[in-house]
């Protein structure tokens, strides 16, 4: 303390007018499995959102491949470009590429000189210490930031909803995670996750389409199309590629993934009763035995369109009852018997939480993540929660704003890094030089 202002007495709460922002032009980076989000602290949406997938061109044996990042880079049709993803299960798997991806997210539109901006990054609660140190190392050694902080994305997402104590359910691309949070601290013993996120859902849709022999077309393949009736063969002019000029299989998969995301947005729905989802009579056959609230039409990029009835519910049911997931020998899927559904991971997340906090935590259940936008999902989470915890009062909150739902982690980081009282928490360059990357364990709790 260099004299001057005294700290508040510990018994006195700060008055609400005293809380306040103080923007220091910090950058916030929220690297996810599907999307990497970056922007300035203090703003309400990330200015730069790029796919976490990247394109690798060339690079046989001797030469290093040329990497392309961002929507424009990886969606362009380039012969021989492989689409890859440096992330796996929410954490970095490829340390050669991830820093380049982050640098692209930070410098392509936001800042030209990273040494002028403190950087706040988010990480999943299960990030191993090795990875945390590595992240800090990259920030200081590679990006040369003046100050750095590594915040838990779950805590950030809870701050984005104005809660310091809550149960955060994040349904992202690679997994569903449940994190109990008390006073802005992750209760580590309660962090649980299950690989039933958006990617699993994509594979469920693929499995279903494979079972009825409907191929997925992607937008890049179509030059023009004509409208056809429901179930009629497509009449589309396909793009022709000269031999050796075709896009790679991984490119095709990535492009199909975009179509599947559209399918999730407009056709998929979560079953909300009454009762459990009735079993299918014959695979593919529409059954009329119960009311699905009408079918939904989905048109593939080539114009082929189908009405989906009960299948809309069957592709999402696996998230809650993994035993009922659809399987196909060629499409990867987690083990239906041992994988835990959302209901069970919520129950086990609270097992090791102090009894006194349970009530408060269950009264503040938050649902975030891109895949939580599935129609009817929050209602189902609510009823699963009611089954797991019949006694206490439950209140579940999920913002209706899809942008806030997708970028909750980033938004909370943006709020945090623009608070005047946060600026004492940054790990500075000097501290890093003195203590090395190990300081991350001590300071970013």
């Amino acid at each position, binding site marked *: 303390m260099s004299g001057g202002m005294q700290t508040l007495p510990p018994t006195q709460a700060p008055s609400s007018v005293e809380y306040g922002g103080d*923007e220091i032009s910090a950058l916030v980076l929220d690297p996810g499995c599907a999307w990497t989000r970056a922007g300035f602290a203090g703003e309400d949406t990330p200015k730069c959102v790029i796919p976490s997938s990247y394109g690798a061109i060339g690079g046989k044996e001797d030469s290093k491949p040329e990497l392309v990042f961002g929507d424009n880079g990886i969606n362009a049709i380039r012969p021989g470009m492989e689409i890859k993803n440096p992330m796996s299960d929410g954490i970095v798997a490829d340390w050669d590429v991830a820093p380049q991806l982050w640098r692209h997210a930070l410098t392509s539109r936001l800042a030209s000189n990273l040494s002028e901006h403190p950087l706040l990054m988010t990480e999943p609660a299960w990030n191993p210490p090795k990875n945390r140190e590595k992240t800090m190392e990259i920030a200081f050694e590679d990006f040369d930031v003046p100050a750095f902080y590594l915040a838990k994305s779950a805590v950030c997402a809870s701050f984005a909803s104005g809660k310091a104590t809550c149960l955060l359910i994040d349904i992202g691309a690679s997994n569903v995670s449940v994190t109990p949070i008390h006073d802005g601290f992750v209760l580590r013993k309660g962090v649980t996750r299950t690989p039933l996120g958006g990617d699993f859902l994509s594979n469920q849709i693929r499995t279903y389409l494979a079972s009825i022999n409907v191929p997925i077309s992607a937008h890049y393949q179509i030059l023009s199309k004509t409208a056809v009736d429901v179930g009629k063969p497509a009449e589309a002019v396909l793009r022709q590629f000269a031999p050796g000029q075709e896009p790679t299989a991984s490119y095709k998969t990535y492009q199909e993934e975009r179509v599947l995301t559209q399918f999730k947005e407009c056709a998929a729905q979560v079953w909300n009763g009454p009762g459990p989802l009735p079993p299918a009579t014959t695979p593919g056959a529409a059954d009329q035995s119960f009311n699905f609230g009408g079918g939904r039409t989905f048109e593939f990029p080539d114009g082929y369109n189908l009405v989906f009835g009960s299948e809309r519910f069957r592709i999402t049911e696996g998230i809650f009852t993994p035993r009922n997931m659809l399987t196909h020998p060629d499409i990867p899927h987690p083990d239906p018997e041992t994988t835990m559904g959302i209901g069970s991971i919520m129950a086990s997340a609270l097992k090791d939480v102090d009894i006194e906090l349970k009530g408060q935590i269950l009264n503040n259940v938050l649902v975030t993540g891109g895949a939580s936008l599935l129609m009817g999902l929050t209602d189902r989470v609510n009823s699963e929660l009611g089954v797991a915890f*019949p006694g206490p009062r439950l209140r579940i909150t999920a913002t209706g704003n899809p942008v806030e739902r997708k970028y909750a982690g980033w938004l909370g980081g943006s709020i945090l890094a623009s608070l005047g009282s946060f600026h004492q928490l940054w790990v500075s360059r000097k501290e890093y030089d003195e203590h090395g990357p190990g300081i991350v364990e001590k300071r970013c709790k």
Partner: protein
Amino acid sequence: MSGFQDVRDVMDITGAPDVTARPPPPKKQKTIEKRPDGITRELYALLGENPPPVAIVETKFKERPKWMGKANPWIWKGFENPARSDGLTLYHWERKTEAMDEDLSYRFSKFNVQVDVPTYSDAEYETLKNDDWSREETDYLMNVCREYDLRFPVIWDRYEFPDGKPRSVEDIKARYYSVCRSLMELRTPQNQMSADEIVMFNLLNFDKEREVARKQMAARQFARTPEQCREEEFLLAELKRIVANQDKMAEERKDLFQRLSYPAVSGNGSISAYTGSQGLAQLRDLMVQNSDKNKRKRSAMVQNSADIGAAGAGTAANTPGGGSNANGGAQRDTQAVKKQVRRLSEEEELVFGVSMPEKPTTGVKLRSTMIAPSVKGASAQKMATAYTQLDIAPRLTMPTIKTVKRFEELQTSVGALLDAKKVLEKLEQEARVLKAQLEAKGISV
């Protein structure tokens, strides 16, 4: 140009504005087409640029506020945070003011509040020794407590003492508080503590057993099944009903005792104490008092006591030398005596039907109408049934003083009988219910 100047002021740009750098946007030349000859003005008005048929409200900007002086500039300024020890300089925009150059402390540094976790010397630790806790673990505990600001659920969550025993939240709390308490006592003996310190000292007394029991109860409460919740709700409603019933019963029983009670007679059971007019007045007061306790019966009782008073007057008149002049009641009696020309004996009074009511009513009335109805409404109905059962006419054929008096007595005792019957029925009902409950639980009575 003043808007432009304001911007320059805010950015603190001095020097002559570079006019050439920013040529004013070319003014739109308004061309007025000339009306060709041979077309009437009206017709031409319908062609060409028509004025709109509806009046358009001219949109006007708000008037420019008149600032005194020029706009205040903001500057990008580095600041140090006294809450940090590493002298990290961060930058933010600040309003340029006179006080700027003075070394103002960062206004958010006062939120850097730390909790007081005591430290102890080696000598002091001697008194803190505990078989269950090693010195190393105690040191570790105090550090974690400091690190997580005494958030015990978080401390327990992160508690990882190498090769230590598993500790519960209560173990941790008990050790922490006992260390604090012992240290406090060691430093200031209990008899020298100030009042505040005593309060603090007592607060530090952590009752682990009670806390554990309380948590267990909370856990049981938390783990209720829906059936248990429902049963509890049902039992609570039942309990409320029984309590309400009991209150009503107690009230009624009190009523009954009120009816059956009579003023306690002194010693030998003789009525000699009440034979004098003074004694009678006392008796009357006593009875009025008794009846005061029961508002519902009050009016009836007053009537009765008035009767008794009247009777007393008669008796007093007959008692030679009876009644002193000491109190008001006796005074009235003596006045009545004075007025009397000839004294009638009791038998004579009866024979002639003479009575001396205390408050004679005006006019002539049949005695039968003077019989005080002891009860009203539904109970009157019941009373009538009781009369028929007992073979008594509900109305006196010959209402003399004597018969009326007897009839009123009868009325009271029938009332008491009916009340007793009601209570009996209720008790029997309760007994039946309890017996049934016991039987349901398999306990034979």
